[in-house]
């Protein structure tokens, strides 16, 4: 690992100023992604600003204003605490499920909510500094395009990068239309809709998201929703636990009897960002909650996929996973598969 200066502060503005004045500095939160990448020489900050002592860990209901009924989750809170907080388990169980589907208990005890959003791709060529990779080293080429791309994208990729974004938590946040609140220099606050937070690779795969250097994620806002009783997170992976998704689906159904008032569906493991399955959502609106309708909508969504050489299986798997998640959600959040 390269040498770096270590600083810590309890003050958010101080942390932002420290980061802002050094383009090679990084925030250190749980460290579960950043340290790993520093050991691999993929990330090379010369200064780390430890932000784990900032007072940004609480979880609280929003009781007033247009966002009343929602919940604010501190950006520096741990994934374990977000998943297990009573407010989240009761009213936003989809988030609990998605967080608990990721990593291991140890890692969730370390990982922060902000750090989770910022985690980088697990594309193996991105990790291997001997291989070309446009995300790690812009202009060097994409090794995965013609390489082993079984884990890679089927939606929204470009010729520059076919990587997928690995967070489970963010897939649930996407289905829930969360907002990411960030603080800038001089204390200004900016709110970014989760579906605008991460980017598609386009010509700039080195940019995972729309956060600027010097901005700090202070909280995540979950707007009130009506699908706590009918939500599901289904994750398919190569082994049962402690592995990244091949495909995952977060869904919430607002039902009126057997009629679907609205369906909220986001996918993980298929694109450079959480992929909102808006084609399937549109098809399900107003329809009966039946297996046949679920399958139709799922297949319609996946018919737009553009698989690569090694990941054609994700098209069928995606349709099956959407169908299974919708069916589970229609039975009820605590239903067993």
């Amino acid at each position, binding site marked *: *690992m390269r*040498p*770096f*200066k*270590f*600083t*810590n502060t309890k003050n958010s503005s101080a942390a932002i100023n420290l980061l802002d004045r050094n383009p090679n500095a990084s925030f*250190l939160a*749980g*460290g*579960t992604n950043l*340290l*790993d990448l520093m*050991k691999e020489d993929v990330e090379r900050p010369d200064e*780390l600003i*430890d932000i*784990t002592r900032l007072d940004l860990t609480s979880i609280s209901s929003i009781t007033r204003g247009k966002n009343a009924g929602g919940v604010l989750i501190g950006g520096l809170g741990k994934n*374990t605490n977000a*998943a*297990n907080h*009573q407010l989240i*388990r*009761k009213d936003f*169980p989809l988030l*609990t*499920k998605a967080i*608990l*589907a990721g*990593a*291991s*208990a*140890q*890692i969730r*005890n*370390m990982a922060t909510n902000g750090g989770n959003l910022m985690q980088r791709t697990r594309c193996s060529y991105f990790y291997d500094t001997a291989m070309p990779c446009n995300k790690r080293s812009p202009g060097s080429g994409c090794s995965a395009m013609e390489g082993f791309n079984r884990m890679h994208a089927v939606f929204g990729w470009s010729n520059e990068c076919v990587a997928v974004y690995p967070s489970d938590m963010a897939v649930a946040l996407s289905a829930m239309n969360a907002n990411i609140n960030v603080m800038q220099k001089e204390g200004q606050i900016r709110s970014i809709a989760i579906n605008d937070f991460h980017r598609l690779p386009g010509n700039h795969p080195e940019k995972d998201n729309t956060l600027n250097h010097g901005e700090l994620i202070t909280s995540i806002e979950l707007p009130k929703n009506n699908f*706590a009783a009918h939500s599901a997170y289904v*994750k398919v992976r190569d082994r*049962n*636990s*402690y592995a990244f998704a091949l495909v995952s689906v977060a869904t919430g159904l607002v039902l009126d009897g057997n009629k679907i008032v609205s369906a909220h569906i986001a996918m993980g493991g298929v694109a450079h960002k959480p992929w909102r399955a808006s084609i399937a959502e549109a098809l399900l609106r107003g329809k009966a909650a039946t297996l046949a309708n679920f399958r139709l909508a799922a297949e319609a969504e996946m018919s737009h996929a553009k698989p690569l050489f090694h990941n054609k299986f994700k098209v069928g798997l995606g349709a099956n996973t959407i169908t299974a998640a919708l069916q589970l959600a229609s039975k009820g*959040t*605590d239903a*067993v598969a």
Partner: protein
Amino acid sequence: MSDNNTKLTKEEERLFGDLMPEELNEIIQSGLNRRHFVKLIGLASAGLLTSHLIGAEQLFARAIDMEIEDLPPIAIENGVTVNLKVNSVGKIVLIDSRTTLLDTLRERLRLTGSKKGCDHGQCGACTVILDGNRVLSCLTLAASCEGKSVITIEGLARNNELNPMQSAFLKHDGFQCGFCTPGQICSAVALMKEAKEGQASYVSTNIRETEVGMMLSDDEIAERMSGNICRCGAYPNIVAAIKEAQTGKNIEQTWLFAG
């Protein structure tokens, strides 16, 4: 050494510029560190310092407050002093900012119970209990642990009496080679607290209600222990040991002596 950013005098800048041109910028920005110091000693023994005697005196004067005797024979850069409680004993260590908690425990505090399996968060062999929660010490910077309390496998027994989880692992043969065992046991001990609090897992079926003091099924134990890989495949025995430790009830061993 993070705060030795004393400004260099013009004399010193010239001295370092002559001796270590590559390092000059670094020294100006973050001060003299141990790697520079070691290099200077090398130069001194090669006789290259003689023409810079005045500067050299100042160098050595600065070097003295580096607590050299307390350090391992490696170069420390960007030193950070950390106060830690390790198995209930207070420790103060001066470490390179890059040092993980795992390396601090193993290399500096000589607590080699915690193991380095992968060093990348993928195996759980380095699991320790930090402020009550299980974490991976290979992905934790020691510098970020100021004021925290660490429990390692060495700290679980009380006065020669094993922790019940340790006894259960022994009884059920929860290991073969034993490499993953310290991590497994620390993980399992913390898991008992999580179950008591009613923390959920991916396989829990009652997400919307919190059930405190939950008794874990085999599936729940397997899912919650999935962050600890065992290459010997002692999993069934590990699950049996955890069940016994949790229920306090005698559970049949899954193995028998031959004959």
